[in-house]
């Protein structure tokens, strides 16, 4: 991509120029392979780094520094992109034009970002044990809290069962047991390795020109250790088992949550994106129109397609007694796409939705940053414009073939306890 360049060995800057926002966005992410052994370590790392730096050793002084920069925000992020785990920080700060005192904010924010990565608060040469313990507890609470949102829980359980033998089945935040076992020394050791061996992706979106951003980031990351860079292993695509697998779990809830997953054998990504949109990707899609509007089986039913893994999923909230009807209807709607049973307006709507969301990406800094990270972390290199052109070239036959290539792999159902009787 033209707007991405290598700033230092293994450090890439994507510069997205825009004058129209009130703020600038600056972010930095280490791209690492998603693995069971390291997922919790990686997830814990930015949370501990965010607790304090050598210069601002606690939350109070760090917050004071951010407040002084007119409420600049620096949040740590842990994102799962295919079989890659990206950990780092996203910062947002008001554009120089609106700073009441005419201050420049990009440089001090970049400096703070660099300090968070490179100059953490330490105690006896390792991370501050109290910070590590506190954030371990928060991470464990975060993993446990996935249960609080029942659809999230059903989706996570589907992935754990469906991808039990793949790295993709590893949770974004890792697991409780590995987290509990982490010591300050082990985390510090891991930090040194990850920092030296991982690719660093930097993003800026705002009114400053490339040269100014490069200067600020070169200064901020001048001390980044660069060891032997490890290549990221390729992502794996699996086939569905001979027969679908079914899992049911009980909770004390009113509404049942249904989660279904298919393996898409096709390599035709643009066609599969459109097949997903026709199936359940919009409020015009077959799932919404039939499962919700026509049969009143649910409040919501939608599908999504994870392109880097070739996995199609459906999430749906239903009354437990409607389980069989809903599963059958959802399967039937996917079959309808494979049979080419759609009207022109359905495909036009799917295209128009995609066109609108891709062209309006440039209107939202956060969404744009997340799009490019998703591309760069999964070794794809496609601008929104290129993706749009590829979608426009898709024929109805390719959509049918893509939908026909999907095989049901796993069904997970979370149901209420009374319903079990």
């Amino acid at each position, binding site marked *: 991509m033209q707007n991405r360049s290598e700033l230092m060995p293994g450090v890439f800057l994507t510069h997205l120029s825009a004058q*129209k926002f*009130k*703020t600038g966005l600056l972010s930095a992410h280490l791209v690492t392979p998603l693995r069971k052994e390291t997922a919790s370590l990686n997830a814990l790392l930015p949370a501990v780094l965010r607790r304090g730096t050598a210069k601002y050793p*606690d*939350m*109070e002084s760090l*917050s*004071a520094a*951010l*407040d*002084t*920069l*007119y*409420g*600049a*925000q620096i949040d740590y992020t842990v994102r799962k992109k295919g079989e890659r785990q990206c950990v780092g920080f996203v910062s947002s*700060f*008001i554009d120089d*034009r*609106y700073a*009441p005192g005419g201050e420049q904010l990009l440089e001090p924010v970049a400096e703070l970002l660099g300090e968070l990565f490179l100059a953490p608060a330490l105690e006896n040469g390792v991370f501050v044990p*109290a910070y590590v313990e*506190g954030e371990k*507890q*928060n991470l464990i*609470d975060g993993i*446990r*809290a996935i*249960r*609080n*949102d*029942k659809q999230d829980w059903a989706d996570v359980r589907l992935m754990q069962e469906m991808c039990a033998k793949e790295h993709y089945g590893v949770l974004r935040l890792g697991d409780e047991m590995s987290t509990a076992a982490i010591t300050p020394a082990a985390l510090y050791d891991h930090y040194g390795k990850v920092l030296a061996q991982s690719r660093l992706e930097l993003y800026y979106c705002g009114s400053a020109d490339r040269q100014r951003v490069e200067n600020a980031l070169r200064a901020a990351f001048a001390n980044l250790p660069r060891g032997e860079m490890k290549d990221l292993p390729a992502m794996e695509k699996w086939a569905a088992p001979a027969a679908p697998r079914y899992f049911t779990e009980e*909770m*004390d*809830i009113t*509404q049942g949550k249904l989660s279904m997953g298919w393996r898409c054998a096709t390599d035709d990504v643009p066609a599969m994106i459109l097949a997903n949109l026709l199936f359940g990707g*919009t*409020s*015009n899609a077959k799932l919404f*129109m039939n499962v919700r*509007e026509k049969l*009143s089986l*649910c*409040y*919501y039913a939608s599908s999504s397609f994870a392109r880097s893994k070739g996995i199609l999923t459906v999430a749906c*909230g*239903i*009354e437990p007694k409607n389980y069989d009807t809903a599963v059958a209807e959802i399967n039937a709607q996917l079959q309808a796409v494979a049979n080419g049973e759609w009207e022109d*307006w359905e495909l*036009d*709507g799917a295209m*128009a939705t995609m*066109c*609108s*969301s891709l*062209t*309006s990406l*440039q*209107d*939202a800094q956060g969404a744009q940053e997340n799009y490019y990270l998703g591309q760069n972390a999964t070794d794809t290199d496609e601008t929104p414009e290129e993706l749009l052109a590829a979608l426009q070239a898709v024929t109805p036959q390719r959509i049918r073939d893509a939908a026909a290539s999907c095989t049901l792999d796993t069904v997970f159902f979370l149901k209420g306890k009374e319903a079990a009787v």
Partner: protein
Amino acid sequence: MMMTYPRIGESIHRHTLPNGLQVCIVPKKDFRRTYALFGTSYGGMDMRFKIGDGEWLDTPAGIAHYLEHKMFDTEEGNALQMLATNGAEPNAFTSNAITCYYFSSTEKFYENLQILLSFVSVPYFTEESVEKEQGIIGQEIGMIEDNPEWQCYKRLMQALYKNSPARTPIAGSVESISHITAQTLYDCHKAFYNPANMCLVVVGDVEEEKILSLAGELFPDTAAVTVERDYGAEEPLVPNEKETRCQMEVAMTTFMAGFKCPPQHGGEAQMRNNLLGDLAIDVLLGESSPLYARLYSEGLINSSFGCSYDLLPGAAYVYLGGDTPNPHAVLDAILAEAKRVAEEGVDEDYYQRLKNANFGSTLKGLNSFENIAVSVVEAQFRGYDPFRFPEVFDSITREDVVAFIRDNLVAERCAISIIDPLAEEEAE
């Protein structure tokens, strides 16, 4: 009338059409997306009202939200689908005080706007379609009732308020919505969906004349309707009950505490009070407060902790909460810190820092078209100008902040709602 606001780089054009409809246009150059929101000053709390000199009408809980769902039905089909076919992303929401319909699109904006104005202004319900919706909304209610945060909030509101309809969930219950008929929906539409009670906001790079002419055409001269609303007997500032506690399928204990504050009555005074309340709770327990840092490092709160100041028709309250191993310890610490601040005041440097930070985050909100449109529509109904926030901020003093804390964040005003994980069924 056009107003410009150089301190925040915004401007707004306001018009009142002959039929009484307010139209506000916020120009945004260089954006691909255009956003339109059509709102009525009618929300979940407006259950009891009378039209003109008529009788008082009591409508079922959840009716404003039910009406929102049914408005998408038109004689030609579902408006949601028509908009989605044009690539627009349409949706709607019902809050305590307002109902809004909106879309954002990059193509065919004026065609989409016409669809929006038309389906919201022309009701079309049949008994069958109204009955069918009960299944869908029943599922929606089931879904939110399983949400611990929502339960915690609902129970807090019922603990805080005795008479106010703020006690009643916006979507109602499966039972209450079973009383809704096509006729009650038509009555409510007639009362509240008249142009003088509504506002259209457009954010984007648009042609003003085209919007005004579309909005003018779609509303033939409607006779003005006067509606009187009843929000129940005046509320005391003490809560209805001090504590409510229950068990749910959650991973750890979660809580919300609320403090009743005097209701606000619109105008710039309300806007100032809103900014003041937000700043005051930030000073007391925002992310950069000493209290937050202490509770966080003691493991009593985590990043789920948050606080806010909320203004409803005839009701106002501060609320705060999150996951915690010990809700009462958090609440006691907050009450003690509020007492200390009330007695000792606030350090000037700290106060200025937070005021700067608050300015920055309010400014940041102007990146979002949704946020702009909702603020403009709410302000329109409550009679203030949301883009004057820098000037209003200037008028707030450190003493105002201390007084807000001293008056409102006290034990007598406070109620707490706690949700615990389910007790283990089998004892070891």
